């Protein structure tokens, strides 16, 4: 594969989503060094984009992921999330985005069977950032919730039945039953 800048063989490859467009940059060694993208900093572009010091101080109104400090405008810029919790923080408008990308907006595939067995342990990072005006939105479905909440599963089940998604309903039902073997009526 050729370098995007000159005709040499490319050895450094970077894929990024910029403004929703997937962009692949292929560079030869010389050009990558000239552009400040060396092998050692394969993450260089992301870090340059995202390091806290580059965040504008005035953006206090902006939605920020409480867990990792990722901002909505960063998400817009690179099209990727900062951490798993970001999906809860940026859930507004997510459905629309996902609908354009996928067959549906709900996961129907494999589920980890051990999910309840492990405790969350979010690393403290950038919690110090003062975000007075942007209260962290309550996560819609916090991935960090340790045991699956039966009440919530019940609510999901109700919704699934109401919306006639019977496959989901059946799955949720067995999920609830597996959590409460003694609660069977």
């Amino acid at each position: 594969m050729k370098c995007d800048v000159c005709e040499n063989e490319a050895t450094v490859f970077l894929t990024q989503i910029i403004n929703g467009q997937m962009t692949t940059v292929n560079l030869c060694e010389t050009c990558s060094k000239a552009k400040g993208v060396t092998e050692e900093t394969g993450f260089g572009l992301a870090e340059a984009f995202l390091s806290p010091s580059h965040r504008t101080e005035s953006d206090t109104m902006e939605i920020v992921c409480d867990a990792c400090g990722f901002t909505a405008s960063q998400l817009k810029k690179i099209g990727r999330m900062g951490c798993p919790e970001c999906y809860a923080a940026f859930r507004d408008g997510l459905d629309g985005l996902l609908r354009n990308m996928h067959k549906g907006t709900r996961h129907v595939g494999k589920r980890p069977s051990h999910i309840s067995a492990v405790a969350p342990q979010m690393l403290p990072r950038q919690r110090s950032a003062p975000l007075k005006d942007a209260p962290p939105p309550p996560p819609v479905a916090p991935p960090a919730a340790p045991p699956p909440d039966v009440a919530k599963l019940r609510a999901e089940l109700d919704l699934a039945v109401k919306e006639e998604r019977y496959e989901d309903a059946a799955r949720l039902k067995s999920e609830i039953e597996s959590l409460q073997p003694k609660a069977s009526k």
Partner: protein
Amino acid sequence: MMRFATLIKNPADWMKGAGPHSDVVMTSRVRLARNLRGYPFPGFSQERQRIELLERARPVVEELPEMRDGYSEDYTELSKIRKQVLVERHLVSREHAARSSGCAVVVDRKQSISIMINEEDHFRIQGIRPGLNLASAFEVVDRVDTELESLLPYAFDPKLGYLTACPTNLGTGMRASVMLHLPALVLTEQINPVIKAIGKIGLAVRGLYGEGTEALGNLFQISNQHTLGEAEPEIIAQIEKVIEGVVRSEVTARAKLKEDHQTMLQDQIGRAFAILRYAHILTSKEALNLLSMLRLGADLDLVGNCDRSLIDMLLLEIQPAHLQLNAARELSPEERDSMRADLTRTRLQSIDGPGSFPPSQSNNGGPASPTNDE
């Protein structure tokens, strides 16, 4: 654990083995994107966080039953050429190979499973099988994934599925892809409508090598684009069904070429063999395209005593990093072209070439057995 040299010395399981439709389908690959709770995604993490995750996860990955006694390497320990060899073997992605600190890869002994740590996601679990066999590739990664999930806290959301750095991987986190050799569809100029039709049903098609529409070596990769809203077996069944159709078109096109244009076909294959067998300078592009013709010739029994796996190995070995690894030093492009030709000439000594195919033989044998009338 296994050493790099040992890993690379042996052809991977999927290089030797023949799978379903392996005249047209070279490999089937399935990869799962997985992340841990409590850590930012690699693209938004600090180096120390990536290293911390690596130090926690790598020993766990190495001890998985499938991966035990395999190959495991921290990227800070790997030269650029070695990383590139892993890329050329489809064991790691180019993006991953471009990284260093905080990254590692673990490969099983048979080179059919590889787990990249701190790629775009914390884990990329990949399974690769010969021929059209996505279901079997999925079965392998599914098993590894289930083991890993019992040992490490995955980031999973009941509604959104496996949480991934890029929303395009959300849900199953699964990308299933098939590498196809489609020389007859290209020669008969049917490839573009086929690509268009596949694109319309939500699958991505791209040339394996080369930019844009150019597909060097007539090699194409087809993969799913949607990961949310469909279960893994559905996605796989859909792709396999589509691929079966592409395989049928290719096989029909090959038969028609042999029937209606035998002289042209034999000429092309004969020229390909002659150049590969006697040239002293071969660019990568030329070699890929000629090897593609030779592979077609072998599949149509137009080349005597030519095993398909010999060509498939060559397709790997003529790539830049493999050549440089073989030479044990960095090579200039000119040196590579000359070493590529040396390697090709040597490897093709053992096959008889198209000359041994008696032109007078009536076409009653069909493509059944590669018998060699001498």
